[in-house]
Structure formats: C-alpha cells, structure tokens
C-alpha cells in the first residue's frame, strides 16, 4: 500500500536519504500520524457544562461537531474541579451517546407482556388524562378527621436530585397547584 502511493514516500528510501537511518523515527511515520490532531480541535463549538453525576459539580467542556457530542472533558477553569473528572465524569460522553439509550416512547398496556411504540404527543395526552381523572377521583377537601386538606393522594412522584433547579421548580409548582402532595426525591434516601 505504502509502496503504491509514491516511491519517494517509501520509508526505506527516507531511511536511506534522511537522518533516520535505522527506520525508527521520522522515516517510519505515516502521513496519517504526521497529521494527527485532537478531534476536539475540529469541534464546531465548545459548550460549558457541569457533570451530571455527583454533587461535586465538576466543570465540563462539551465538544460538539455536526450536532453530536464528540467529547466531554473537565473544565480547567473550574476552581472546584480544576479540569479533573472522576471515572463517571469521564464517561459522560458515553452516557449521552450511550449505545443502550432508549430515545423513543415505549408503552406497556395493562397486563401486556411486552412494550409497544407510542407517539410522544399521544403519550402526553394520555398522561394528562390520567392525571385529571385520578385527581378528580381521589380529591379530598377534608381528610378523615374533617380537617381541611384540599389535596389528592391519588398520584405521587419520585425523583429530582438529577434534575435542574428550574425543573424541580416547575414540578413542585405544578404538583402543588394540582393539590398533589406526595412528591419526593433522593434527599430522603
């Protein structure tokens, strides 16, 4: 192969004509190797981010090319993490580009043995219906002691520690307006 391209590029010839007589240095270097550059260099943009795993909150740089994350690295500017990442933070690229990540809605009918596909819009409508129905069915103005409670115990939520503050805020706000109080997250466990 390398013979084919150009005789002058033939390493043996470079060995004979250059400094690298023993063929262990520049003469043996391939054109590909000579031109190697880090892929981050070719990124279309670099986006500031924060590690999604633990509460150290290490700074991350997210490299994007062709609308795909191609690398995630520690941000040296962060005074907390100083550019470093633990194995989880270092695996963040695999997290977001995970081969096993499910990216479509899946739906399991009651008593069914397997998943089926469902359109996102339909799923959201169905969930809104479930919320409204369950809420109406389980609404309590007073509890069993006759105390004012104005709530539903008919549905609950769990999770929040992986979410953004803005997301938790909307969840708490909506649930509270719905009168749903059973809302919990990892703080408790």
């Amino acid at each position, binding site marked *: 192969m390398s013979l084919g391209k150009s005789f002058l590029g033939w390493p043996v010839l470079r060995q004979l004509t250059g400094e690298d007589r023993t063929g262990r240095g520049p003469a043996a270097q391939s054109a590909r190797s000579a031109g190697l550059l880090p892929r981050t260099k070719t990124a279309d943009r670099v*986006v*500031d*981010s*924060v*590690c*999604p795993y633990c*509460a150290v*909150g290490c700074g991350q740089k997210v490299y994007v090319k062709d609308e*795909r*994350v191609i690398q995630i690295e520690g941000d*040296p*500017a962060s*005074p*907390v993490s100083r550019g*470093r*990442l*633990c*194995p989880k933070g270092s695996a*963040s690229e695999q997290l977001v580009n*995970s081969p*096993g*990540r*499910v990216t479509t*809605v899946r*739906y*399991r*009918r*009651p008593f069914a043995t397997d998943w089926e596909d469902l359109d996102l819009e339909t799923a959201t409508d169905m969930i809104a*219906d*479930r919320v409204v129905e369950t809420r109406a069915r389980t609404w309590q103005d007073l509890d069993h002691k006759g*105390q*004012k*409670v*104005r709530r539903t*115990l*008919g549905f*609950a*939520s*769990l999770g*929040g*520690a*992986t*979410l*953004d503050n*803005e*997301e*938790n*805020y*909307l969840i*708490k706000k*909506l649930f*509270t*307006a*719905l009168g*749903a*109080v059973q*809302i*919990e997250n*990892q703080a408790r*466990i």
Partner: protein
Amino acid sequence: MPGLGASFGRGGATTFLQDLQHSDCIVIQGSNMAECHPVGFQWVMEAKKRGAKVIHIDPRFTRTSAVADSHVPLRAGSDIAFLGGIINYVLQHEKYFKEYVLAYTNASFLLREEFQDTEELDGLFSGYDASTAKYDSTSWSYAGLEGDGREGGKGAGGDDLGHAEGESHGSGGPALNPNEVQKDWTLQHPRSVFQVLKRHYARYTPEMVEQVCGVPASQFLEVCEAVTANSGRERTTCWVYSVGWTQHSVGVQYIRGAAIIQLLLGNMGRPGGGILALRGHASIQGSTDIPTLFNLLPGYLPMPQAAEHETWEAYLDGIRSPQQKGFWGNAESYVVSLLKAWWGEHATKENGWAFDYLPRISGDHGTYQTALDMVDDKVEGYFLLGQNPAVGSAHGKLQRLGMAHLKWLVVRDLNMIESATFWKDGPEIESGELRTEDIGTEVFFLPAAAHTEKSGTFTQTQRMLQWHHKAVDPPGDCQSELAFFYLLGQKVRARLADSGEARDLPLQHLTWDYPLDADGEIDAEAVLQEINGRHADGRLLSGYLEMKPDGSTAGGCWIYSGVYADGVNQSARRKPGSEQDWVAKEWGWAWPYNRRILYNRASADPDGKPWSARKAYMQWDGEHWVGPDNVDFPKDRAPSYRAPEGATGPDALNGDDPFVMMADGKGWLFSPSGLVDGPLPAHYEPAESPVVNPLYGQQANPTREVFKRKENPMQPSGDEPGADVFPYVFTTYRLTEHHTAGGMSRWLPYLSELQPEFFCEVSPAHARERGLENHGWATIITARAAIEARVLVTERVVPLRVGGKVVHQVGLPYHWGVGTDAVVTGDSANDLFGLALDANVHIQETKAAACDIQPGRRPRGEALLRMVEEYRSRAGITVETGQQRMTQRNEP
C-alpha cells in the same frame, strides 16, 4: 439536613470543598470521600500535602482510608458513641475553645428544671409518650421562656404531625423567642447547657467507646488528640460526612454529634473548619432547596399542615416567632413572595396571598409511606422522574410490589431502568410471586434529555448553583423535564380551564406562561428569573433582603434570590479559578448571597479581630466586615452593637451573634427545639442489631418510624430470642466505578467493565467461619430476602470485638439490580432491607442492619421464598417483631 439546621441554622454544608486545603486536620466519618467525591477529594490531598492529618473513620478500609494518615474501623451504626466519646474527652480534658464557646454557643444558657436526660431515664429524654412514641419537647426548652419557647406554633414533635417537621430547618433555625433566656457565664450552673452536656456524655469513656464501637481505646484517644491538637486559635479541623451518617434510624443525631464537637472546638465559621456535608447527586442540594419533597416549599418553608395551619396567620405564626432574632424572622416576606410568584395577581392580602391554594399535609407522605399506600391500592399513578426505586430504595420488593398495584406509571429516564421493566423481568417474576399477565399497571416510558441537551442549574454540594448550557438537541422523543412538565401543565390546565370546581382554581390561576427560547422550548432562564424574584415593576431582585411581606415582590425561592442580581445570570459566571483567590466568588453563585463559608462572622473574635493571623478570614475594619468572602452577617454591624430591647428579626442580632438564622444567634450545643428525637445525641443501636445497647436500657431510637405490616417483617434485635439467626452486621455503600442504582453507570460499558458483578466483602476470618471463598459465591439472607453475590475476601474488612464478642461485618455495594436491559446486572442489596426510618427526615436505615451469610448461590424460584420463610420462622418473626419502640428495661 436538620442535624445542621438545628445546630447552626441552615441545612447546607457550612463550607466549600476548596477550603479543605486550609484544614490542619480532616476527619472523614460516614463518608467515603475518595470514592464518592473523587474530584472534591483533591482538596483533601492538597491539605495533606501541606501537612494536615487525615483520619478516616469507617467500618471498612476504603480508597479513602488508603491515602488517609489513619483508618479507624468502627462498627457500623455506632458513631454516636464515638462522637460522644470525643465530646466527653474535650470536656474532661478542658480542650474546648473557651472564648468561642462562651461567645458563640448556647453553653451558658440555662435549661428548665423539668428537663430530664437519658442518664436519668435510661435512654429516654423527658417528654416521651409511649403510646405515640413521640416527644413533647416543652421540657427541653430554655429556662425563662414560656410554653415551649415558641409563641404561636407548637414545639417540634409536640403534635401528631411532628414527623413531617424535621426537615424544615434547611435555612432557618427552629422558632424560639430568646429574649428572656437565663444564662450563667461561669458555666457552672448545673442546669447550664454546658453542665448538662458534661453529665450526658460522662459515661462515653474511651472504654465505653471500645465496647460499643469496637475501636481500641488507644486508637480512639489518638483521634481525640489529633482533633484537639488541631483546633483552637491557630488551627482548625474539618469534619466531613455523607450518607454513611444519614442513613440510620438515628442519623440526624450523628450530625448533631459532630456539630457539638465543632462548636466546642471553635471550628465553625472559620477557614479550614466547619462541617462539610457531602451531598449526593448533581443537584440533590438543589432538589431540597427547591424541594421536590412533600413537607417543604421552596427555601425550606414548611408545607402547611392540616389542622395546624388552618389559616394564613396560623401558618405564619407556626413557622417563625414574631420575636425571634435573625433572618428567619422575615419568613413572612419569603412566603408572600413565593405565593405571588405562583399565583400572581390572584394572591392578594385579602385572600391571605392565596394561601388556601396550597394543599395540606398530615403526617408522613414520604416515599416509603407512599409505597405502602400503593400496596393498599390507595395510589393510582406514579411519576418516576430520574429515580430508580426498584433498585435504589430500601426494601426493593416492596417498591416493586407497590408499583405492580398502580393503575399507571410514568417513567422518565435516560435508560430503560429496572423500575420501568419490573413487570417483565423483576425478581418477583423469577420467583413466581408475580406474573406479568396479572400486572395491570399501564407503563409509559418517556425518554429524558441528558444534561448536554438542556440548559439549567445544578446546585452542588457547597450550595453553589452552576449553569450548564445546552449543547445539542435531545435525540428522538427525548425531552427535558422542563419541557415535559410545561407541556403537561398546559394540557391539564386546558382540560380544566372551564371547570367550575373550586379545586381547580389554583390551576386556573397559576402563573404558567413562560417565554420560549430560540429552539422553541421553554426558556430555563425565565424560570430561574422567576425563582430569583422580581419587584412589582418587573425589575429583578438583588437578593432576599429586598423581599417584602406586602405583595410588592414575587420570588419562587427566597434563598436563591440574588442568583440574578444585577440582571445577570450569576450561576453562569465562569471566571477561571486561576484568575481569582481561592474563594473564587466569581464562579457560579452560592446561596445565601453568594457566601462560601457560612457563619463566617465567627472567623473573628467577639471584637471582630481574627482569632489568629494564620486563620484570618472575615474581620471588622471599623466600618464594615471585610475579607475574601461575603460576610454572613449584616455588613455594617459593629461587633460591639447590642440590639435594643424589643428588636426582632435581623435587627435583633447583636454584634457577636454569628449564627444569623438562629432564634438566639448562637450555635446550639443543645437543641431545645427542632428535632423530634432529642436535644442531644444519645447512642442507640440500629433497628436491627446483633448487639445489646451497652449504654442504655433503651435499645434503639425510641422515636424511629416503623411500619408494622406483613410486607415489612423486621428482625429481632439485641438479645431478643431469634436475633442470633442473623448474627452479622452488614452495611451498604458505593463504589467509585458505579453510580447509585446504576441507571447512569450499568448501561455504560466503560464503567461496567470496571466493576462488572455484584459482590460482598468479608474478612478472612469471617470467610473461614462460613466457608466463603474468594471469587466464589455467597448468599446473604435477611427476613426480607436472600440474594447472591460474588465474594471478595479482604483484610479491608475487620472483625471487631464489641462488648466481649467478635462481630463480623459484611460489606455490600448496592449498585446492581435484576433486569435485562443493563450491560451488567445482579441481585440488589436493597432487597435485604426492611423499613425503619429516622423520624426527623424519614431516611431509611441502609447503613447498618443484621444478616446471615452462607456459601454458594441462592435458590431460584419458589425455593428462594421457602428459604427466606424458613429463616423467618427460625427467628420467630411476627408482625410485632422489631416494631416495639420503647424497650427501656430499667423503669426510671
């Protein structure tokens, strides 16, 4: 973290990671920092490089121990004895920082005559009601105060809703009126906090520590010496803990133990000192600040309780005392601003700021109670929003059985986690307890957007908000919670827009219009602005001091107010650390008011001068408080200032009251209110323990939350008959290579290959005793389940001599779960646990319990159920077993 709240006033870490480099001694206890916060751990290594002593106190020798100066192995669940031992040592040897203690703590405050200590009541404090297993804390209050010391609201735990109150001190100490408290500056009065403390811990001797914890007295004393030698004017010690401390039925009191030590040694509010609570997930701090929790509103404002908070006025009086000192005194402004943010023009003074739109809680609506309610078919629907209870929550079987009772389940996650697939591949399917065809749960799996696919803030462990920018669009159907919930809200509102039902008013009146960003999605910055708050004219607030109780300001979370100061998203600031001093105030934004060390007024002496040049931080320059941080104190309040008679709120803070959220401005050695299980930490055994409490007749925490149900069989403990069926202590924990329930690690080949299988860690002696072989298999059995794990025989686990007998400990990382979608799967350690919760915070006890272990793999199918049943019957377990809370034997 009410342990911190009821000691200092706020529930967050009191310091920041980088500050660890200035510690002279770092005690890591109840945390495996090198493995769980590896990048933060660089600051421990930095301190070590500068000569600091690093001590790791942990049942296991971990990767933290490996680089610590010393590792102290102790029995899981025995820390209060250890900490109490240190307190006793400090007091007996007069090692406390006297000036600090006098000036900044409540040591000199006198307690009431009615107060009785555990010493007198064999493990109980005064006020215990055996029929409800709850305390009336009136007798714990200071002498000179009326009632329970709170005007208006009831004392902590003084009603049957007390269980829900524990966590309400995330930012603001418990309500209390300090003005008439009696004090004894000589600290000699027998009812002074100082003398009570001394008596309470007098029996926590080195010998007792050895007997309870299994730590040789000599090793214990080395810790005492290291800690005291590295505290005082010139030196500071930092205590680091995490969930090794919180996941106990008496977890909050562990933290109180450290708080007392740090106050006595004068380490609070000072550089290199403090208590670093290492929190868990990327935004776990944020999710308590803006809580997706049942008992809190944003900013640690309590959720209204049925009966208790019938009216707006009752609520207000219940959460703060009008006479109280400090910034919590302004709570009214914070609540009004919140209600204005949510209901806008519909929240008026006349309708009590729409207070009635808030639902009321009554008792525990926590996740474990909810799971039981699912089993009872009381709950129809469930949203899982980035949590995997089938694996991550205690008593995995209960979680899965509960979900199998639901009508509908929405799982939003990055990966197809076990909680979404339990109906087809959960362990109960294999054992035959459940059949897929019989499970009526309708399941929606909605793929979530990853952190790179949305913008927003995480609040990390040092209370710092950091903005992450969206890098790419989410793939396929993936969606952020922000987008999903905005849409869901719109859809629900549309469905109820024309209803005439009163219950729908809060929805119809809800402020739910957010601008869209360039990608056509709800703009996260707009939400953050709402959280920050605005004046009526739309200007953004610069901080909560601008909040008003008259409805002229709106703000979603008062403690976060200031994150948009000057109209700038302060959380997105990224001025490189190298271009700033080590406090790095211009990176991100920390609540409150971008302070990095809390209570930092205490870094100066009462006169406002640094305690020492070496430990200088904030000081009074004659006009202002100056230093590298933002002072956690009124900026221009002189040290000599004395509040006038009758002053309340911030105005009532004297110039030497550094604990600005506390009703009395002081750090609490003794917590007269705020905790439901006692004003001082006392050692109790874990709910399930093979050891008899050597200190008190009361075996376990008398207020712990129990669930007396057939789904929750508990084991006999101590010397109860049958306890020897489960002779070993086990604990559960994390590995560097995995993340929690595995949703973010077991799906990734790069992390999975590093720890591919579930394993247990046992000592060589234990392995010999049970015939376990390294690399082989073992079956671990409790009253709930039998699970199998590969065996690692390691000297990192040591058998401990406790009260004359050898106690073997089994270590179990809890990251694996049974399913078919992950790269690596395995039995789940959480299936072993029953439910016993800390009464303050409803945290389950997953750090210490009792089990048996046998060589070989577990049986499959029905044989598995038989095995567990056989163990239960051998131990004589009934629904009553282990549910008895008051066990004190010597009638006082």
